[in-house]
């Protein structure tokens, strides 16, 4: 299946892109996104503990099963206000 991954703030700087498409095996968990991108961008893994995942604009947990066409965002610590 194909999903779209979006990056912001620190995660965008680490990856060097706003977003990218990613192919994953069917039934993959949200955590697989960080694992796979971590192979290409090892610095992402250093941030792993403080990155929150969102699927289709909702915060989620690592075990969430992804579906074709999902939008997954890697949300670094927020600092609005």
């Amino acid at each position, binding site marked *: 299946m194909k999903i779209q991954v979006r990056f912001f703030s*620190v995660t965008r700087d680490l990856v060097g892109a706003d977003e990218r498409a990613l192919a994953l095996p069917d039934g993959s968990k949200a955590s697989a996104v960080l694992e796979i991108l971590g192979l290409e961008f090892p610095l992402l893994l250093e941030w792993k503990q*403080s990155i929150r995942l969102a699927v289709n604009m909702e915060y989620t947990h690592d075990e969430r099963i992804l579906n074709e066409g999902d939008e997954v965002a890697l949300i670094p610590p927020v600092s*609005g206000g």
Partner: protein
Amino acid sequence: MVEFVRSEIDILMVVKEVGSPASGATDVFIGTTRDVQNGKRVTLLEYEAYESMAAKEIKSILNEARATWRLEGAAIIHRLGKVPVGEASVVIAVSAAHRKEAFEACRYLIDRLKSEVPIWKKEYFADGSVEWSRSDEFLPSGRTLS
């Protein structure tokens, strides 16, 4: 009311937005950009958002506030892009029949916004360095800050 703007926030407009004949109190929180962070002089701040999700999250926390307190009006306006030091980056206005509800809801809204809503601030320092700000309030469930 939820809005993102890329120029100076019209604070009076936000206050008027939440006004109603039934409200006896309007509480306004204005977050402004500060010129010092961790002892270093800041010259400029720049905000970015995951806008679609941020708008959804803000609507959600506004609904939580409305479910907790009896409010007449509530609005959150956040500025994005470059914000010079001393200007408003966020304005929250809440109106209610009495001040207690307005004060409590306003405080709740800014606290939730700062910990949950996907907005980020980049700080430009006088020494030429640039850093993404890191809030201590961001503690994802089941994770700890490294």
